[in-house]
């Protein structure tokens, strides 16, 4: 078994050079609640509900802050939620692909400038497909 460690990141059809091992995402299944409903006699039934407010995905990665990249990030931010992020990779002869549509950088991202600095970019998007 070989874990997925060599992921390619594409934003709006452009391949992005990222810091290795910096990619992570959430599937967008959201959070669920498990509560108890009393039915008498010290018995309970479980009540399982979806918290639809959390049915979004997050995808984040780090990049190096060169001039072209800083310009690209500004473009992603100003595009609001009109970005598409795609992660692809292969492992054990199988292909991995996740697409994050309607993605936007909702946070106030920080550009650290220096010889050994990186910029962490986090997109919020519709649930990954």
């Amino acid at each position, binding site marked *: 078994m070989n874990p997925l460690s060599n992921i*390619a990141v594409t934003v*709006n*059809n452009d391949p992005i050079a990222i810091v290795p091992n910096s990619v992570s995402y959430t599937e967008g299944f959201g959070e669920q609640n498990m509560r108890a409903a009393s039915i008498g006699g010290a018995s309970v039934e479980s009540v399982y509900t979806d918290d639809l407010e959390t049915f979004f995905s997050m995808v984040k990665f780090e990049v190096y802050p060169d001039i072209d990249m800083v310009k690209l990030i500004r473009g992603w931010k100003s595009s609001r939620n009109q*970005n*598409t992020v795609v992660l*692809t990779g292969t492992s054990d002869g199988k292909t991995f692909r996740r697409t994050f*549509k309607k993605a936007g950088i909702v946070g106030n991202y920080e550009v650290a400038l220096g010889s050994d600095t990186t910029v962490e970019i986090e997109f919020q998007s519709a649930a990954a497909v």
Partner: protein
Amino acid sequence: MEVIYTLEENQLLYAKDGDEVQAEFITLFAPSSKQLKHTTFLKQSFFRALNSLQGDSKAEESTEQPEMKAGDLMAMLYMSDVDMNVVLLTAIELFKSGVALVDGEQRLTSPILDTMSQNDLELMTGTYLVNFTLASVLAKTKKI
């Protein structure tokens, strides 16, 4: 001058306005001196193929046709001694250099090309060669 290549297989996806949409055609543009490295290699490959097929009646017939089709051209290249791996990889680099737009609006990048079928890549390469790179040789240009 531009030429429209209509995709044969519906599997080319690209990002547009935050969604992923299926491409229907590729708009091809004439090369400039920026693409010299790629176009000269492709043109040279064609003439090498022609040379290696000299004496072959099929090759002679195909070069005499006034309306050479993309498929015929690619078949001729495949029948020759030309290394088709290098030809197609050069064509990929050429398309990525800015002479191809997906649905006439999105630059063809490597992630998009990765999802293109081999059949479409070959036919699009043939279309480009017939209409641009070899247009003067084949005495055929097409305006759309």
